[in-house]
């Protein structure tokens, strides 16, 4: 049985206050079940073991050491190397966005880009918007 309450979302966001507020609010609204990851390594492990209907991923862009772990995570999902369908909706949270990043995100099939400063409300609306495109398990 498909149900709104069963929408499972992975939220990857190192910023504690933003991540916790989104997760607590979505939980209280009952619109989705959010699994939080503060670190990309944790998110990768979660992706390998759990099936999600959508993901919201903060990107470490520009990457400090040449490797954007957020993009690696999204590519892991898109290449089918996760427990989730490769086509799940993925939204990206970024500090800023230039043409290069936009091109990369388009190639990754990102469904929405939120550029700081954005509000908790924007992230919640983004998660709500995934309901239409997600195939709820």
């Amino acid at each position, binding site marked *: 049985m498909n149900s709104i309450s069963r929408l499972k979302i992975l939220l990857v966001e190192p910023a504690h206050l933003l991540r916790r*507020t989104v997760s607590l*609010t979505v939980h209280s609204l009952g619109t989705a079940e959010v699994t939080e990851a503060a670190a990309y390594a944790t998110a990768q492990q979660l992706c390998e073991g759990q099936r999600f209907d959508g993901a919201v991923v903060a990107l470490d862009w520009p990457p400090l050491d040449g490797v954007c772990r957020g993009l690696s995570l999204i590519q892991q999902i898109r290449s089918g190397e996760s427990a989730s369908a490769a086509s799940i909706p993925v939204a990206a949270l970024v500090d800023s966005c230039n043409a290069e990043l936009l091109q990369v995100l388009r190639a990754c099939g990102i469904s929405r880009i939120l550029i700081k400063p954005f*509000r*908790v*409300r924007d992230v919640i609306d983004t998660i709500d918007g995934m309901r239409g495109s997600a195939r709820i398990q």
Partner: protein
Amino acid sequence: MIKPALPANEKERLVLLYELLLLDTPPEERFDKIVEFASSEFNVPICLISLIDADRQWFKARVGLDACETERDVSFCAHALLGDDILLVPDALLDPRFHDNPAVAGPPHVRFYAGAPLTCGDGLALGTLCLVDTVPRTLDAVERAILESLRDLVVLELTSHRAATDE
């Protein structure tokens, strides 16, 4: 103006407030971050973590207000303590409790107020996380849920030391 009544558990509430050693303590980043975050999220000029003492309200964290305390008699937050839910005042000028409150008639010219009671696990409300604007407005269901989430994070921070020492 209607002065706020005292909660039924006022005595126990004050005992807990004093136990937590919060009043008249220096600003702390963990609380400052929350009021700054809330002020930005809701686009309000004033956001406070207000603790209600016996005869005053004292601000543990504040954005947009110079005063560090006010009298309890004129406190919106002291009214918010009396309920479990967010106290929402869309337009203070239209509310008999607040229309002639000095904070409405004069600076900071409060029109909108939303205060989420900082209620601990034992049902004792220490104060509020509150939003203030100088123009009338309201909060929809999602905004109320966001304010409640931020309130829950404040309560966790306020009581974290107590929880740690209880273990």
